[in-house]
């Protein structure tokens, strides 16, 4: 599983990114 780090201070945008990336089988982490 690929890992990805999200660096975004806007909560809504972080949630959207996390949702889409998780759907694509990424392991998402929030900075």
């Amino acid at each position, binding site marked *: 599983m690929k890992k990805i780090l999200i660096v975004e201070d*806007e909560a809504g*945008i972080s949630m959207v*990114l996390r*949702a889409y990336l998780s759907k694509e089988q990424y392991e998402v982490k929030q900075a």
Partner: protein
Amino acid sequence: MWDRSGEITHRFPPSPPEETRQLADWKDRILSGEARFFKLAPAEDRPPFAVAFHPIEDGGHVLLIVSETNLLQSFAEFKYPLLILAFAIALTGWGVIYMLTRRLTRRIQEASAAAKEIVAGNYRLELNHEHKEMEIHELMIAFKEMSERLSRQESLRTQLLAGVTHELKTPVASIIGLLQAIKDNIVTGEERERFLEVCLEDSRRLHKMVEDLLEFNRYAAQAVSVVKMPCDLQDVVSDTAARWRQGRQDAGLRVSV
């Protein structure tokens, strides 16, 4: 030249024209001061002679007898230098006024060019404000200050616009992303509810920002009237602290006034 009794003491030329014999008829009037200037009747076809008398301090009179033609010629000869002198004075006056107005006009043109630069949005003016004329000096200083102030205001306006645009764009992007994720069925169940809650929070935040911006504009346009009135400072501080306490007690924060 006559003595007190009207007798000729000196004369030049030694042989005066025959018309001067008429002076004997004028003698009484000349000595009494009744006649000072008169003409002698012309002899043959010659022009008449003009006679002028002036008393002298030791008594007697000085007589000047001049042909009327010569008199007019002298007058005409004197007229041209007078005209030249008047013309020279007028020319000098015009030159002085021209030089003074030219200096002033140049300063005013400089101010006018600076005003055009400001209208065109160029606030970085290179104005020479070392002028001898106090009014021009003050005008240039005022122009410089005005351009610097406008430059600062323009810079602040640009920064404010950039900041406001960024702050408005961020929640809009968040709302669009959240709704799109819900529409694409990326999230379901509780997560979907959470997405809707965040979407609602962002919408409220956006609404508040727009309201704040409108209020700021009303304040900037001086459409908001400020009423000054005495108030109890303790009440104001207590009320503010009470509002601040709400929702923060759980975080372990305590405020004492």
